[in-house]
């Protein structure tokens, strides 16, 4: 999986050059792809562990309102800077 990511990264770097006039419209796509790659690399740090999951926040809010789950402030976490910033 790491090899796959490496090749994907190389592919994007090598094919990432676009004509100057298209630079602006390409930026958001590049940023999105970069974010995707960052996420992939991060998830691969522990490919043997359970995955990190995206949740349906609307459903979570419904569950919270019905009392099934809580949104109790947790301890032991830190804000994390975006690597793209």
């Amino acid at each position, binding site marked *: 999986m790491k090899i796959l990511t490496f090749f994907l990264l190389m592919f994007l770097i090598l094919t990432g050059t676009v004509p100057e006039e298209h630079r602006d419209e390409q930026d958001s796509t590049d940023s999105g792809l970069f974010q995707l790659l960052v*996420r992939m690399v991060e998830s691969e740090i522990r490919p043997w*562990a*359970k995955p990190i999951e995206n*949740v349906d926040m609307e459903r*979570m809010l419904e569950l919270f309102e019905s009392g099934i789950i809580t*949104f109790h402030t947790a301890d*032991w976490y*830190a804000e994390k800077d975006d690597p793209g910033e």
Partner: protein
Amino acid sequence: MSNRVQCVLCPHLCILAPGERGRCSVRLNVDGELVSLVYGRPVAVHVDPVEKKPLFHFLPGIDVLSIATAGCNLRCEFCQNWEISQAAPEDVSPYNLPPEAVVEQAITYNCEAIAYTYTEPVVYFEYTRDTAKLAKEAGLKNILVTAGYINQGPLTELAKYIDAANVDLKSMSDSYYRNICGGTLQPVLNTIITLKELGTWVEVTNLIVPTLNDDSRELDELARWILENTGADTPLHFSRFFPMYRLTDLAPTPVSILQSARERAIEIGLHYVYVGNAVTEEGMITTCPECNEVLIRRQGYIIEENRIENGKCFNCSAPIAGVWNGTEEQ
């Protein structure tokens, strides 16, 4: 700002974007704030004998109010409680039981201790800590039954309120931890040592799974590690595997392997080695390491006989390690 957070509770160190939850499935990033989804929402609440945890050297015979929420930061393929440990909180029906209600329930049911058990108390850290704090103030004991996959900071904070712990040391092989459990070995070893250093009464359990971790050299290494790092008086429980969760194709552990592991651990130098989840007479008794007299005889989780007097052997007065009716000998 990306509103990403990093949970530093356990060694996974999950980095979570808003709307993502950690590998434990119970800690969610809501707009840059990490929240617990299971605070005060246990899915299991039972009264158990302390022997079921298992703790054999901690106030034998007492009843313990045992609670668990959904979630676990490991994914052991043999998990005996996988229906709740591997469930997301929205997949189970919880009770509404805030910390003060847990303490009230314990007192109502004449329990002398509260155990945080069945799944993984590390992932419901805040609920465990707040309940344990109130329980301690009410004169109750607190018991942690854990796989020990937690970072040192939160462990030290939690240990202030924990009187006894049974730590599941699943193997001495890091690859076993990675491939079978979805974790790593070293943090678990650190947890055992830290709890011991902080004065928590510690017992260790090892589930012997046929073909996966039943090699005699590895079992001996585990016993030797306990001897060298926490001492001969740390009780070790070899527990029998039954086909469960993702390992239904394996047979139960032969009792002979459990007995053999026990005998070798005693030869290595451990004083108190037990066999769990199997009916064996010698695997359920506590004997004096000095004069070899039988001190506690158990039938299942029932104490048939207890001849420890004021923390000492009734026969030769050798101190017996443990917490006995308020008298601690460690």
